[in-house]
């Protein structure tokens, strides 16, 4: 099972996708390496969310391919992609509000590697986000916005994925929790085979935690470089990243 650490965990080539007449992604190349965090940046409407949704099969690709390791996942159903080890934290409303907190987590833990040790996987999440532990028997609709976000991130981690797609994980979270999550991500990624694709509005903090960065503009990749390099490029920052 253990793939050589050099294999690219996720390789997206020439991906094109859209909605009706709108082309939201236009020939995008992105890859995520094990043990590294890749930040996907860009203004509102640049196509970041569409990229993640196309990778996980929610939006059909019109051209291009998606590979996880050597497995071709282009055009596969979302559940199949999820079972191939790609976990997606969707933007906003990712909790199943009618289920309890624990049931939401159990769904995550049931997927893939965590099978057989669902309880420990769930306990790990509670340890990460103590507010969830206190609310484990409550229906998820009673949670506050930030608590829901914690739940979705925790659930994705409980899946024990190879590739983690995070769509604006900081949305609605208190600054301290954001810092904590980024820290945690670094810990998880460091020296493991987990690859992270991190979409963030806040380019500055995303680049501070990421290894690589990709900048999208109107559906196209305009820059792709190590994070530090991007952060240092003033022209790029002003043009696309707004800081």
């Amino acid at each position, binding site marked *: 099972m253990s793939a050589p650490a050099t294999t690219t965990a996720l390789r997206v080539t020439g991906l094109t996708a859209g*909605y*009706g*007449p*709108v082309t939201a992604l236009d020939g995008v190349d992105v890859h995520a390496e094990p043990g590294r965090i890749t930040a996907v940046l860009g203004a509102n409407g640049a196509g970041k*969310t569409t990229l993640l*949704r196309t990778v996980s099969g929610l939006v059909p690709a019109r051209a291009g391919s998606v590979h996880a390791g050597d497995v071709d996942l282009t055009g596969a159903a979302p559940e199949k992609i999820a079972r191939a080890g790609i976990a997606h934290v*969707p*933007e*906003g*409303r990712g909790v199943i509000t009618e289920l309890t907190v624990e049931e939401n987590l159990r769904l995550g833990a049931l997927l893939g590697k965590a099978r057989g040790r669902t309880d420990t996987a769930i306990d790990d999440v509670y340890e990460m986000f103590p507010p969830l532990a206190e609310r484990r028997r409550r229906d998820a609709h009673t949670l506050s*916005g930030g608590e*829901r976000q914690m739940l979705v991130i925790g659930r994705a981690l409980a899946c024990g994925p190879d590739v983690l797609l995070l769509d604006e994980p900081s*949305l*609605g979270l208190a600054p301290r929790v954001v810092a904590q999550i980024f820290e945690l991500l670094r810990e998880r990624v460091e020296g493991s085979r987990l690859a992270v694709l991190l979409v963030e509005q806040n380019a500055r903090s995303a680049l501070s935690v990421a290894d690589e960065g990709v900048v999208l503009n109107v559906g196209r990749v305009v820059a792709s470089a190590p994070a530090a390099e991007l952060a240092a490029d003033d022209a790029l920052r002003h043009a696309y990243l707004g800081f």
Partner: protein
Amino acid sequence: MATPVRPTEKAGSAPRSGREPGRWAALAARLRPRATFARHALLALVALVVVVLLLELTGPFRNSQFATMSYYAIAAAGLTVLTGLNGQISLGHGALMAVGAYTAGLLLPAGIPLLVMLVIAAGITAVVGVIVGAAASRLKGPYLAGATLAFAVALPGLAIHFDEALGGEQGLAVPSPRAPGWFADAVYFLSANETSSAKFLAYVGWTVAIVAFLLLANLAASRIGRIWRAVRDDEVAAELAGIRLSRVRVLAFTVSAACAGLAGGVLGVVVRLAAPTGFTIVLSISLLTAVVLGGLGSLFGAVLGSALLVFLPPAVTNLGASAGLTDVQSAQLAPFVYGAVLILVILLAPGGVVGTVRARWHARTTAPAEAPEERTGRS
């Protein structure tokens, strides 16, 4: 009467983004009267002309089918306002029609004139609508469907229980009004045709329908219609905008009940009877399907849907008979085909007839837009 309830561009609004709307559309926009009333009245006039042409050019049997269609159309129009604009499902509109029909059965023999009776029927049913609507205003989805279903099943039972006044199972006979002399003369003057009773009833039905449609179109285009749609789309946001949900829901139910009552009154005189077996749950279901088949939320769709209700079953039966089936088999074929058509329309044209045509039209004229599905929101 082709009055879509959907938001139409108001005259003098900022130009729609996207491609040029085309020369014809521009011309139409220029010719369109500014005042809502004038615009709708014009359409009503056109509709009236169409009705006269149809009724004068077809025979007595078609006339009688048009009379039947008129009351389905009125009730479906009321329901489309409730369901399409306000988002409430009702499986109980058949029972509300019964209220109108029984009003006809009680008032006409007492010598009340037809028009007065219709107004009273609408009024009484509106009152029933207030009560039902108030009880239903907190219910949603299947709970609303269940409550209105129980209402539809229960109400005819009243007629059996109070059989002294309401005629029990065999119902109340409704004296069918005859065409007044001046009316028959006028028709003869226009078309040199005699006025059969079927034709007169069809004229009555469609006149009532056009008036009802005119009023509903007015409402839909006014702030009331906008508020109904707002409540349908997002309760919480509507409430924060100062809208009292329960009152708005009850109002929608009441308006739609009044239409059902009006339709019931027309049904009474067309069928000449108000009996419990005429108002089974099947009627309520037919109305709902008419609304959806035509195109939810569109008054013109209500007309199309009711046309399907009236013209499809006999057509299927006759087709079956000419294909060599026995009378019993071809009669059984009609509901089968009807059910199959329902399923196929939803699967192939989920917007109903009007919705699908409109989508095609949009796809051709303006920059095509995906169905207005919400983007992944953030909570």
